[in-house]
């Protein structure tokens, strides 16, 4: 009898917890209780990284004899949890950028890992730890927009520059967080680019937007919807949890005369499942994925996907870095890595400039980050920040998936 009561109690608790997590939009989605690992990893200077110096060059940093400096870069991203595949690549690219810079400059910068699990609560805890760790002069991350909201105020107070490579919510750069920067365009750029392509080039009249219930999904979906409605397209929005294993029910509800299904998943494999199920149920709609779907996992021929870079694998300056990454960590599958490489690069180069001008304080590094100008950046072209911390002249690009499942540049 007692055990039965325990079972009933647990079931009720489970039901309530699940209901609440669904209401919250499934922002965590992870079961592991891994705490932030706040151990500094030694900055290894791999010899094979030496050849990358030219690709990772920055004009202001090349100032003759480099001074040997030390300090730590804080990394905030989902190293474990449901988005671990993204976080692992972000961490690896951060480490690679720091290693390459160490090899080039003779300095010994380190990366301190902070596992946010894509959870703003966890991000807040790690943010406090980073602020009180005097070795950390700046932070790469957090990965998601809610995480940026969580650490924006304490980092602002501490003059801690933080550069996110995946937080796209437009409002983050409205001046509320003066030490915030990002290396990717925000949602206000992606929305109109994708919407104009859908209504103009594809001539769509009826669109279904599948919005992943995360701040990423919501931001992109809202931006695309607004632009589509402005273009006179009929839009239906369907919201789904990112942990949904099956999209059959949603696919069934897509009307047969729908021209395009726009998906805002952060995990490209989910877009692939939805696209396949659409075909299985005989729906004619074409799938268009936001930048979260730009990955080898999304490979349904005839689909479209947008990206913040023309083609990472096609930028000549990137070949060396991609080769190094492949050799060290294996092939990368998402578009999340290269922007964070640029973020880490901007931060250590700023630290180096601050060090050569005197000392590495957070305020000095912040001032130098604002002066960032990276030529031949891994994300294409020259990268610098606007006064609000956005990327100067940011653009989005559209690709079509060809018969062999590879994205081909369209516009």
């Amino acid at each position, binding site marked *: *009898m007692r*055990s*039965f009561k*325990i*079972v*009933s109690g*647990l*079931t*009720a608790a*489970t*039901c*309530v917890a*699940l*209901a609440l*997590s*669904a*209401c919250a939009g499934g922002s965590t*989605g*992870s*079961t*592991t*209780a891994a705490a932030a690992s706040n151990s500094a990893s030694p900055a290894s200077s791999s010899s094979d990284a030496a050849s990358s110096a030219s690709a990772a060059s920055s004009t202001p940093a090349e100032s003759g004899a480099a001074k040997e400096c030390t300090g730590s870069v804080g990394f905030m991203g989902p190293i*474990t*949890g*449901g988005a*671990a*595949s993204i*976080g*692992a690549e972000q961490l690896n690219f951060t480490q690679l950028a720091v290693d390459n810079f160490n090899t080039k400059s003779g300095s010994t910068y380190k990366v301190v890992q902070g596992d946010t699990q894509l959870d703003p609560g966890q991000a807040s805890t790690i943010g406090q730890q980073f602020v009180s760790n005097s070795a950390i002069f700046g932070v790469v991350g957090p990965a998601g927009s809610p995480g940026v909201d969580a650490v924006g105020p304490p980092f602002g107070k501490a003059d801690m520059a933080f550069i996110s490579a995946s937080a796209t919510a437009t409002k983050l750069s409205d001046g509320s967080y003066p030490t915030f920067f990002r290396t990717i365009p925000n949602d206000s750029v992606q929305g109109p680019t994708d919407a104009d392509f859908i209504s103009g080039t594809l001539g769509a009249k009826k669109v279904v937007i599948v919005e992943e*219930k995360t701040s990423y999904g919501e931001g992109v979906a809202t931006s695309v919807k607004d632009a589509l409605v402005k273009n006179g397209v009929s839009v239906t929005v*369907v*919201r*789904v*949890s990112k*942990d*949904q*294993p*099956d999209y*059959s*029910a*949603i696919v*069934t*509800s897509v009307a*047969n005369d729908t021209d395009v299904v726009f998906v805002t998943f952060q*995990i490209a*494999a*989910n877009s*692939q*499942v939805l696209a*396949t199920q659409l*075909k*299985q*149920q*005989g729906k004619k709609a074409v799938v268009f994925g936001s930048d979260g779907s730009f990955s080898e*996992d999304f490979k349904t021929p005839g689909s479209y996907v947008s990206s913040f870079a023309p083609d990472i694998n096609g930028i000549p300056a990137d070949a060396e870095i991609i080769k190094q990454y492949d050799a060290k960590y*294996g092939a990368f*599958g998402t578009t999340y890595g290269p922007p964070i490489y640029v973020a880490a690069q901007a931060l250590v180069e700023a630290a180096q400039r601050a060090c050569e001008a005197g000392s590495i304080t957070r305020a000095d590094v912040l001032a130098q980050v604002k002066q960032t100008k990276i030529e031949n950046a891994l994300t294409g072209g020259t990268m610098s920040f606007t006064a609000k911390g956005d990327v100067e002249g940011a653009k989005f690009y559209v690709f079509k998936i060809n018969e062999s499942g590879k994205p081909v540049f369209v516009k």
Partner: protein
Amino acid sequence: MNYLTQQLVNGLTLGSVYALIALGYTLIYGVLQLLNFAHGDVYMVGSFAGYFTMIGLGGPQNPMVPIWVMILLMFLAGMVVSGGLGVMIEKFAYRPLRSSPRITSLISALGVSLFLESAVLLLFGPKIRNYDTTDYIPIGTGIHIGGVTIEPMRILLIVISAVLMVVLILVVNKTRLGRGMRAVAYDSDAAVMMGVDVNRVIMLTFLIASALAGAAGVMVGLVYFTINNYMGFLAGLKAFAAAVVGGIGSIPGAVLGGLLIGFLESLAAGYLSPNFANVITFAALIAVMLVKPRGLLGRSAIVKV
């Protein structure tokens, strides 16, 4: 009408998966009164075993054996690996704690669950794996009635689930092992005195329950394509809820509970809101529990006076 039928097909597919996992929960609870929270992760490991068997046989695009042989071997691998894992979990994580308070085993189960999730993450990395079923089962095959489509893998899933459930019911009710299971469930001390090898019965219970989860894992890969190391958590929770709603300890109850959740989820997503599908499903389940606290097919408690 087509819309409703298609949603019911979707629900039946999903429900069959939940039912298979729920059977494992209910079987283990019935025999040990243990909530095996690692069960969802055993299902996840089964789906990885099936995936790597497929890769080992040449991958989805160039299989070295006929498709049906490959699928059969994937099921076998999933069931054998998960079954073996279940036996090991019982031996190392639960048996030493059998005489401890029940909450100790529950904590151990949660520990095993986290261990398995992290072990798979460490061994195979965080990459989401894809069964790429449509590479070897072309899109467009299957049954088409009006606008309703039932793909071959869904038919296979529903048939295999039904067969496994019937076999399980026969094993429990008609065999010597089943009699042993029922005896241990009823009174394990008395079963020992009557010559039942309790350890063996419990081990075999874990073997069967985990093998069913392994089969469910492979099916999910074949029908829904993608698998990852965290997939067991939510599926396990839903299957657990299914087992409880059906009446934990009852085999037909687990099947009924699983199907109920599958249908509720599909209909809620199709007619109301995909975003609130979980909320609606679990609100309905809470309502069921309020009316029938022992679950739909749960036996009423007989209290010794």
